[in-house]
């Protein structure tokens, strides 16, 4: 499969420990080692998950301060 991304794609998570964590789970289910595209996809998804949470937290923290200001 060809790479479609034209910009440099550095994984958010550390690839080596992430890969071993994923492969350990796959092995538990009797599956083979996962392709590196899967490792990269999971790294991006985790980044997205954290981004969503931090955005919400920033919003909530702002509201908390507004209570004290009022």
């Amino acid at each position, binding site marked *: 499969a060809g790479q479609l991304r034209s910009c440099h794609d550095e994984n958010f998570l*550390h690839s080596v*420990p992430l890969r071993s964590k994923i492969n350990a789970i796959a092995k538990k289910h009797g*599956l083979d080692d996962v392709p590196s595209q*899967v490792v990269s996809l*999971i790294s*991006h*998804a985790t980044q997205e998950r954290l981004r969503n949470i*931090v*955005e919400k937290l920033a919003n909530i923290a702002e509201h908390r301060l507004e209570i004290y200001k009022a």
Partner: protein
Amino acid sequence: RQPAPPQQLENKVLDKRRLQELVKEIDPLEQLDEDVEEMLMQIADDFIDNVVTASCLIAKHRKSNTVEVKDVQLHLERSWNMWIPGFGSEELRP
């Protein structure tokens, strides 16, 4: 309060520097408590476990020995309402 355990860089999938970079991207003035950082790291770990486990079950369901991008994408879309662009989707090809 217990001091934070020493960072095991070789074992951790996420380090605090990356996490802080992400926070700065969202809001340059935002700062995270150390407890919050720890919690986000835990959330990241749990998320990975959840996604990989579900993807393994999907791969097994289609009687494959390997987890593929499409297995992960199916779970991300259905359970997390998440679509990550740029991973082997045919419609992007010229």
